[in-house]
């Protein structure tokens, strides 16, 4: 019985993530436009773009290899699997035992690697520069993510996101300063991983400053649709991850009934809306930084993570 409900919630969760991802991207864009005094495109616009792009014939460069054709599928599959692992409205989904933070980091790295390979496939200057910058930023973002996982593991005893959420939901840990540090570090990593301002501008088409967009310049048709979709999925999964770790309330317990699921779903939508609003406000109030300032930004995230761990050791050592 628990397996069946687990499977059912897993499928529902995956469908939710799939449906939500483009809407979330569209909502952030719309909110940003409203904050800047523009009318902005409809929040459903990314869905419409996606469906339109699927129907278009992809044009590949003459010297594009199998990499350009296979990479979007690898990236989407890894983003989908990672999104399936992050709990949204309920805990105890069938993949919950595998919802390990390090595995999620690995899956994100797989998608990133596929994208960087696709960027280098045709041999354009922009693609190569975008790929190398993306990998260099990830080199600093990953340690910060692992340090956040370390803090969670010390508090919850495991790096399994499902268990972490459950333990944080009980609230027995109380308010921890080191969790604040971890939250800041994870936020910075999330901003960098999703190519948001101030690290990268998701709306730019100015070649010299872009990182993420530079790698998919040559993609078109369904390949472009898949790249856009996996970017939306990543944003959704990062916001869901932040929500699951730091705002775990309202989530249905494992084995709870459909009523709890609906409750959890409503709370989840509210949480995501709040996070999307916060992201839009943050992006509207800050300027994009120079590319070579980004290491300082991510280095600060790394130090915050380390500081959180230190604080935890000292506080547990004294008590």
């Amino acid at each position, binding site marked *: 019985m628990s397996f069946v409900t687990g499977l059912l919630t897993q499928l529902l969760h995956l469908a939710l993530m799939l449906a939500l991802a483009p809407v979330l991207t569209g909502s952030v864009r719309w909110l940003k436009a409203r904050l800047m005094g523009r009318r902005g495109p409809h929040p459903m616009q990314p869905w419409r773009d996606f469906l339109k792009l*699927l*129907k*278009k*014939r*992809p*044009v590949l*460069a*003459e*010297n594009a*290899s199998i990499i350009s*054709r296979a990479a979007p599928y*690898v990236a*989407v*599959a890894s983003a*989908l*699997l990672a999104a399936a692992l992050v709990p949204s409205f309920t805990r105890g989904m069938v993949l919950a*035992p*595998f919802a*390990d*933070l*390090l*595995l999620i980091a690995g*899956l994100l*790295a*797989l998608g990133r*690697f596929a994208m*960087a*390979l696709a960027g*280098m*496939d045709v*041999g354009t*200057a922009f693609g*190569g*520069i975008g*790929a*190398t*910058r993306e*990998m260099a930023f990830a*080199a*600093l973002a*990953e*340690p*910060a*993510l*692992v*340090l956040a*996982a*370390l803090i969670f*593991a*010390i508090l919850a*005893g*495991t790096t*399994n996101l499902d*268990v972490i959420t459950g333990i944080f939901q009980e609230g027995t840990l109380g308010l921890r300063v080191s969790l604040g540090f971890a939250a800041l570090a994870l936020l910075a990593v999330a901003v960098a991983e999703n190519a948001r301002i101030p690290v990268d501008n998701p709306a730019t088409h100015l070649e010299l400053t872009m990182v993420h967009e530079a790698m998919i*310049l*040559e993609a078109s048709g369904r390949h472009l649709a*898949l790249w856009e979709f996996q970017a939306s999925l990543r944003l959704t999964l990062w916001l869901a991850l932040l929500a699951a770790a730091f705002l775990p309330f309202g989530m249905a317990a494992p084995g709870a009934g459909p009523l709890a699921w609906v409750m959890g779903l409503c709370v989840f939508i509210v949480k995501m809306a709040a996070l999307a609003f916060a992201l839009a406000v943050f992006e509207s109030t800050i300027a994009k930084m120079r590319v070579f300032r980004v290491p300082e930004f991510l280095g600060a995230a790394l130090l915050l993570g*380390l500081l959180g761990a230190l604080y935890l*050791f000292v506080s547990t*050592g004294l008590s």
Partner: protein
Amino acid sequence: MLIALALTLGSLALLSLAAPLLARAALGVRLVYAGAALVSLVFAAGGFAGLLSAPETLALPFGPPWGVMRLALDPLSAWFLVILGLCGVAASAFAFGHVKGPEAARRLVPYPLFLAGMALTLLAADGFTLVLGFELMSFASWVLVAHEHEHAENRRAARVYLGFAALGGAALILCFGLLAAGASAGAGFAALRATPPDGLRALAILVLVLIGAGSKAGLVPLHVWLPLAHPAAPSHVSALMSAAMTKVALYVLARVIFDLAGPAQPLFWGAVLMALGLASAIMGALRAALEEDTKTLLACSTIENVGLITLGLGLALAFRAADLGALAAVAAGAALLHALNHAMFKTLLFLGAGEVLHGAASRRMDRLGGLIHAMPWTAGLVLLGAAAAAALPPLSGFASEWLLLQALIAAWRVGDLAFQIGAAAATALAALAVALAAAAMLRFYGMVFLGRPRSPRAAGATELSGVARAALIMPAALTVIFGLIPGHLLELAAPALRLLTGAGAGLSALGGVTVTVAEGGAGYAPLVVFVLLLLLGGGVGLLLRRQAPGIARGPAWDCGFIAPPHHLPFGDPATQVSAAGMAQPLRRMLGKTLLAAREKVEMPPPGNTAPARLQAGFHDPVLALISGPLPRARDRLAALAERLRDFSLRQCLALGFAVLLALMALLIWLERT
């Protein structure tokens, strides 16, 4: 089993003896390499059998004047013997596939000796045999490194290598001398275990084995020979040196520190190993991200992986010191698993680089590019290796590095506050090294196989075929398979882990389809991940293929860059990113502080139409040390020693008398203590 292995060792010696004759014809050369492949297969099988059966010992009927030579096959040596065997099969098959005709004897004779030296080191059960095997391995590989001695840089590489090998060998001899100080002469490992060292003697043994085995494994700061020597050897030997020889050195390290030096070491031993491992991991990964020669890049990546394995070993030692047996097994399991996985994917990558060298005639990334079109097989197989080296799930590199990071995350359970803080920093730095390795692997693969050809030779590259292709397929297949069954591999390694950590508890939870760190801890099920990735990717693909139109081809968009003229069929190769350009972000972010990297743009004066040039480069600080101040100090010492010749007779007599007095004083002091 052990007798069969000993006979196999003997047959390698015979093969080497016959090699000068066999080298005169292509058939003979093939015979040597086929024999080496067969022997390696026996090693792998013997190691596998050794993991499943009880330890064996064997005393040979000959040996040094003070005793006999002893061989033993216990789970630890068996695990490394499997690694050696698998690498040996692939490397020998690759060499077999590339035999063109008669070969120089200096390339052929040392090859079986090299394999024999490594196997003898692994099977040795007394200090003399181990050092003999180790030195045989060093010497044979030195001859192979020097095989193209007409090039000055190869001569330099061989010279530096010989210097480090001599240093390591001397340290190792002293180390085993100190270990045997408590036991009778000619005693085997069993007698050494009975009298573990303590106090200053133990500390001296730690330092000596770190110099002896660490220099061979490529631990910072004794790593500088490795990026010089590994690329200079023929590609199949580079593969063996990087994949197997460094592991043999790590085996010696583990054997001495975990086994022979007693069942318990203080916590700081582990901390020392961890610090060295981390420094190597960071240094190696960063250099790999900056190097411009494919084989040098791969050699630097070896330093990184050796560092990660040492980090795992050090962590296991620390857990053992803190009496956390189950966690020690996790850390040691990560180290052993990574040793196996690294051996496989590094063999694959080096053989792939060798294939590129054969096909496109260059090791410089700035002369390669776009090889995925000319060499699809090599490109596909090397991609697996590069992805495993970049620690991407569900390949083998991710499984072992996941386990290592999990062990690091659990390191706070060692109660000491300083250790906890150090371990947290170590976790971040290990993750940094892993991510840097991913950047380096992307750069390697992207520069060599993707994009447009950067030279005519790269445009006309030829694909490998026959046995050489099989030699690449084998490690590639094992990289995938080992990535999917880490739990079963850990079960296989359980006896070795028990030997290393002295704990039986916690091992049962580790194995199986899902690798679990501890009861209720995080789990990793690579098979599930693999199947789900296939399902999701395939599902999306099928869903889209049904309704979407086919693919059209056109010139690259490249933000409206104009199409190249007819005389440049691939466009101007310089309009794509270069090796130095791809290294730029990391060179600026980390290289300036760690590797004294520099960048300078040389602008021509206004009116001059000469192109602007970017000068970029970096130094390894240790290499700068041994090529600058160290020779100067040697010269100063030599000048001082020269002055002895001008001494008068009276001064010479006084000197002799003073030495005699000093020695007697030392003797008296030693008698008292």
